[in-house]
């Protein structure tokens, strides 16, 4: 085969191949994964809300369901995914406009620190009433 004859094909595995990579790549992988999880959640959300079509009995069941431990833990996980994706997204908006792109690594860790702080407080708000 002479030079230029081999045509490569799109390789999506590169999106999830952080071996030997650095913070920016890990942030990218994290954003892809949390993005896909949020996309999946939209469908779960609509499926759960469809219980309301069953009238008042359905509503009561939904509230009972939403107050259960598995659902509350699901909510906590959802908050974590939302915070990671959202705050990293804010970082990307600024970095993408050239603001602080030299410090993109530090911005990532700052976003994750903020996510952790908000996550801790939100987890308390979600789980504390059920604990009592």
């Amino acid at each position, binding site marked *: *085969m002479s*030079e230029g004859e081999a045509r*490569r094909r799109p390789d999506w595995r590169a*999106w999830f191949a952080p*071996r030997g*990579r650095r913070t920016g790549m890990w942030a990218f992988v994290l954003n892809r994964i949390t993005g896909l999880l949020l996309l999946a959640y939209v469908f779960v959300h609509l499926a759960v809300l469809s219980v309301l079509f069953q009238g008042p009995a359905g509503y009561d069941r939904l509230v009972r369901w939403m107050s259960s431990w598995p659902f509350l833990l699901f909510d906590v996980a959802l908050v974590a995914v939302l915070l990671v994706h959202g705050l990293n997204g804010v970082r990307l908006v600024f970095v993408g406009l050239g603001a602080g792109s*030299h410090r993109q690594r530090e911005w990532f860790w700052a976003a994750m620190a903020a996510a952790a702080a908000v996550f801790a407080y939100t987890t308390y708000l979600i789980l504390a009433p059920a604990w009592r």
Partner: protein
Amino acid sequence: MAEVELTVRVLRGPARASAAGGRYETYTLRADAGWSLLDVLEALQAGPAPDLMYRHSCHHASCGTCALRVDGRERLACLTTVGQIAAGRLGERTGHGKDYRLPRGARAAVTLEPLRSFPVLGDLAADFAEFFGKLDAVEADLVAARGEEATHFEHCITCGACMSACPIVASDLEYLGPAPLALALRGLQDPTKTGSDARRLAAADQPHGVWRCHHVFECTAACPAGVDPGQALMELRARLVRRRLGWREGARR
């Protein structure tokens, strides 16, 4: 310099559309810690793998020909030393001139693969035809800029390391990629005004241009020449946004 028992795992295979599809072959040799990876490849070629294909030319990081992946990271073979590998210091630009104080009888293992997102001519030799075509699209001017507007982007040796490190270049075949876009900006900044700025801006301001970048910044991390293609892309974006908004170029706001 200490001698190292080096186990080299090489992804080998005939000409193909990408690095995938090859097979790993393992060789063991005794190498001086001061050897570069090019020395290692030459020793393999002179010994157990006489048909091993790889690219090289200048041996001193000027030509950008010998880029490959070393344990998953894009590196110039000429800058990477056996001692550096044995010490686990692949994050450093070069191992030359450094004494890693390796113990007697040190052993190390390393995996060598061709650049990602390049067709392969054979073994470790990447096919640069597509990449060079993208450089042509932005009229990459490789003549060093003169005058006070000189930038560091002309340091680019078009080794392809940034292209291999970028996950978007892998998934979007039409994406121009970090080096061509950095060189587009360098062309726009060129005080000698060689080439067409309109053509450079048109190439950058399209769906497979600067807007395709996902801010991974592996291009900047991988660059062996100290160019910062990630920053160049962001500057190019800012320039295009200002242009769209009708702001005067160079005006401070």
